[in-house]
C-alpha cells in the first residue's frame, strides 16, 4: 500500500461535514458572514468553496492583501477563485502600512519581515471582521499547524478553522473535489512572503514526506524508529518531531500563572460554545 493512501478521505462526507461545521459554528454566534485572506494558494481557495456552500456567496468576503513583493500570479489565481465562486472580494495593499513599520529599522531579516506581513494581514482581517460583522475563518492546514510553519497571531489567528485537521495532501483531495482552478492545484506551495519563496525549499522536505511522517507519528502512534523503518532518513523524522514539539506553544493560548482555586483554562473549564 502506498503510504499516502492512508491519508485518503471521503471528500463527499468530509466536505459536507466542513460546510455544516462552518455554517453552524458561525450561525450560533448570531453572525451570518465570513471573512478571510485569499492568497491564491490551495488552502484559502478550498476554504472559499467551503464558506460559499456554508453561507452563500453574498455572505463571504475574500480579502486579497498583496505586498509589493507578492507575485502577480497570486493575485490572478485568487481572482480566478473569486470569479468561480462569486464571493465578495476586496484588494487591500498592505505595502504602505507594513513598510511604515519596517522602514523604522535600518536592517531587518526576512523572518521578521515575514512575520510583520502575516500580522499586518491579521490586523486587516480582524478589522474587516468588525467592519463587515463577519467572523475570520482560518486557512491553516494540519501540516503547517503541527510543524509550526506559520506566524503566531498572524496567519494562525482566526475565529474558526474548517481545515485545521486536514493534512496538505488531504487539502489537495478536497481541491480536486471542489474543482479549484488547475493553476492553483498545479503550482508549488508558497507563503509568498518574498520573491521566489517555496514552502518545500524552505522547510527542506516535501509536503508528502511531512504528511506521511506526521500522520504515522501522531495519528497512528508510530514511534520515531518505526517511521524511519518505513523508509525515511533518521534526521528527517527526528527533525520533524522536534519541530512539532518546539512549536506546541503556537497551538495554545498563553499560559497563566495559577494563584486562585479556579484559574482560567486550568480549572475554570468551559467550551467556547458555552450557551451557544
Amino acid at each position, binding site marked *: 500500500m502506498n503510504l499516502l493512501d*492512508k491519508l485518503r478521505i*471521503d471528500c463527499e462526507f468530509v466536505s459536507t*461535514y466542513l460546510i455544516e461545521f462552518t455554517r453552524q*459554528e458561525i450561525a450560533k454566534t448570531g453572525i451570518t458572514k465570513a471573512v478571510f485572506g485569499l492568497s491564491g494558494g490551495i488552502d484559502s481557495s478550498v476554504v472559499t468553496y467551503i464558506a460559499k456552500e456554508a453561507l452563500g456567496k453574498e455572505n463571504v468576503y475574500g480579502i486579497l492583501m498583496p505586498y509589493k513583493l507578492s507575485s502577480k500570479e497570486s493575485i490572478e489565481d485568487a481572482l480566478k477563485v473569486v470569479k468561480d465562486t462569486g464571493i465578495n472580494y476586496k484588494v487591500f495593499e498592505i505595502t504602505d502600512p507594513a513598510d511604515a513599520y519596517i522602514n523604522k529599522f535600518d536592517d531587518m531579516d526576512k523572518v521578521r519581515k515575514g512575520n510583520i506581513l502575516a500580522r499586518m494581514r491579521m490586523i486587516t482581517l480582524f478589522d474587516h471582521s468588525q467592519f463587515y460583522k463577519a467572523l475570520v475563518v482560518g486557512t491553516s492546514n494540519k501540516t503547517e499547524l503541527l510543524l509550526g510553519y506559520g506566524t503566531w497571531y498572524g496567519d494562525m489567528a482566526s475565529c*474558526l478553522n474548517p481545515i485545521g485537521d486536514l493534512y496538505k495532501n488531504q487539502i489537495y483531495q478536497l481541491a480536486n473535489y471542489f474543482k479549484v482552478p488547475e493553476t492553483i492545484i498545479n503550482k508549488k506551495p508558497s507563503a509568498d512572503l518574498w520573491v521566489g519563496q517555496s514552502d518545500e525549499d524552505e522547510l527542506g522536505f516535501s509536503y508528502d514526506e511531512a504528511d506521511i511522517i506526521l500522520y504515522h507519528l501522531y495519528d497512528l502512534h508510530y514511534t520515531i524508529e518505526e517511521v524511519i523503518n518505513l523508509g525515511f532518513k533518521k534526521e528527517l523524522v527526528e527533525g520533524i518531531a522536534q519541530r512539532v514539539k518546539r512549536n506546541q506553544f503556537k497551538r495554545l493560548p498563553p499560559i497563566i500563572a495559577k494563584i486562585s482555586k479556579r484559574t482560567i483554562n486550568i480549572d475554570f473549564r*468551559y467550551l467556547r460554545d458555552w450557551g451557544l
Partner: protein
Amino acid sequence: MKISVGQIDTVLGDIGKNVKKLEHYTDKAIEENCDLIVFPELADSGYGLRDLVYTSSRTPNDPIFSNLKEKSNYIDIVFGFAQKESGYFYNSSMYLSEGETINIHKKRFLPDYGMFEEQRYFSPGETIDSFKTKFAKVTTLICEDAFHISSHYATFKNETEILIILSASPFWSDHNSMKWELWENVCKTSAQLNGHFVIFSNRVGFEDGVGFFGKSFIVNPKGHIIKEASFLKEELFTVEIDLRDIERARLFMPIRKNEVCDESIG
C-alpha cells in the same frame, strides 16, 4: 408499535431551551400517533459540559420536566439528561410513561480517553437493568455503555426486547472507516445475537468543532437496519415496528435457550 427518534441539536448548558425542544418534538410525535419517542444522550444540557455540569444538572423530579411528564400520558418518552444526586453528577437517561418516571439509567461506562472527559465530571452508574414498559421489556444504554460487551450480555441474560441506545457520538473517519460503521456493526450484532430491536438515537450539531453525526437508526431482531436518519441534520423520524418480530427471530435462532448465564457478569 410506532417509534420516533428525535435526532436533535442542543444549546450547551441551556436547559430551558433544550427541554422546550424536547417538548416540541414530543408534540409532533404525538400528532403522528407514535407510542415512543427516543432522544439522544444529554439532550437537556448538551454534551461538552465540563464545569457547566455543576449548574446544568437536575434531579429527576425537577419541575422543568413537568411538561414532558404530562405529555408522557400520550406517548412514552426517553431522553438523556445530566442528573444531580447528593452532590454527585450522573450522565443519565429518564424513561417517562403515563405521567411517571419508570426508569432512570445512569451511564455505567464513562469514557475518559482521547477527547472524552466524562469520568472527570460524572460518577458511574452501577448496573444495567431491564424494565417492563407497556410495550416490551426494555434496556437503556448510553453511548459508551454499548461498546462494552458485558452490556450486551446483560440484555442477553435479561431477555430484553427493545434495546435503546442514547448517544452523542462524534464524527471521525480515516481512509478505511467511518464512525457510524462501528455503531452499525455493534447494533446489528447485538440485535442478531440477542433477538431484540435496537434503537440508536444519536444527536447532531457541533460543539467547539466536534461534530455529532446523527444517522440514528433502528435495527430489527434479524439485524437489519429498517430506518436511518440523515447525516448531521436535525430531524424527527418515525417507523412502525412489529413486536412479533422478536418472537419470530427467537424461533429461528433460539440462542438464549441453550445457555445458562453467568450471574457474576454484566
